């Protein structure tokens, strides 16, 4: 076990932040999982891997936080970080036929991660 796995996560804070975004929870619950948002993401168009699909990123970041009702571990937040920073640049070009604002969800997932000290260290981890 690494030192990070023992880090204390403020689950109450996460729950409180999730409760501020009931609209996002509602929008996530109506996602038809149609996969039609895929081609609107330039990262997906380049990589052609499902992990880059906008709905996948929203479901597995903020969606995961809602599903777990904020009771997440540090490792889970690290996984969310990989999706929210590593697979998305928040360009806001993702297009959902239902009008779900996907980028705002990923952005909120990032904000939640930041409050727990989990964020992309561009100075340490150079991508690309």
């Amino acid at each position: 076990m690494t030192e990070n796995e023992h880090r204390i996560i403020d689950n109450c804070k996460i729950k409180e932040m999730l409760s501020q975004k009931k609209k996002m929870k509602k929008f996530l619950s109506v996602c038809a999982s149609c996969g039609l948002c895929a081609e609107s993401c330039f990262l997906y168009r380049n990589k052609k891997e499902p992990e880059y699909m906008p709905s996948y990123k929203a479901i597995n970041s903020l969606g995961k936080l809602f599903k777990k009702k904020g009771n997440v571990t540090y490792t889970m937040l690290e996984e969310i970080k990989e999706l929210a920073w590593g697979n998305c640049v928040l360009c806001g070009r993702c297009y959902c036929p239902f009008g779900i604002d996907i980028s705002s969800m990923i952005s909120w997932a990032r904000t939640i991660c930041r409050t727990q000290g989990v964020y992309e260290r561009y100075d340490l981890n150079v991508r690309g």
Partner: protein
Amino acid sequence: MYEFLRGPMVCIAFLVCVLGLLYQFISLLRLTSVKEHIFYSSKAKKKNRNLLSEESLSNLSIKIKGTILGTEPFVVILTTLFHICIIITPLFLMGHNILMYESWSFSLYSFSESFTDFLTLLFLVCAAIFLLRRIFIARVRAVTGIYDLILLLITIAPFLTGYMAYHQLINYETIITIHILVGEIMLMAIGLTKLGHAVFFFFARLLIGSEYSFSGGSRAWKLKI
């Protein structure tokens, strides 16, 4: 069993459907009453009123390229046919209209039986492609859960059993009872699950926060359309 399904259960199913949709509708209204800041303003596009000008047509082709009509035209055609069939087939089916007339002395226009049969088959083909798409296309599979598959099967079941009943492929009385039951399950599911997108869709098209919105996408219902 048959009498119960044809009688009180129909009322229960419609009630659950309507009340469920009403609840979803009201909760969405509440959640979307505050106007949000939208980054992509649609004001610029409104300046150009001449829809047939070269600039407008070129803008339109660029706009379509960025939508799902441009990126996945086959799925757009498929989903359009699927949704048209799912609405008009049961509404204008002769058998349903006869039952309605017997119960309430009121009926809608009825399509010919052969045309309804064609629409049902078309629906089943579209639904089968959707199912295969969910299983075999990696990006769709990645976001598909068991819940999505169950909902798709709930949607398909009334059409499949209706087709089987019409052609009397197995014992008619059994299959028609199953048909009524699964039809009622689907009605209730519309009110209680994400199948409620039947109503939600129109909401969302006006809420979407981008240049693709029909109304400029201010994500609020206190807006001038």
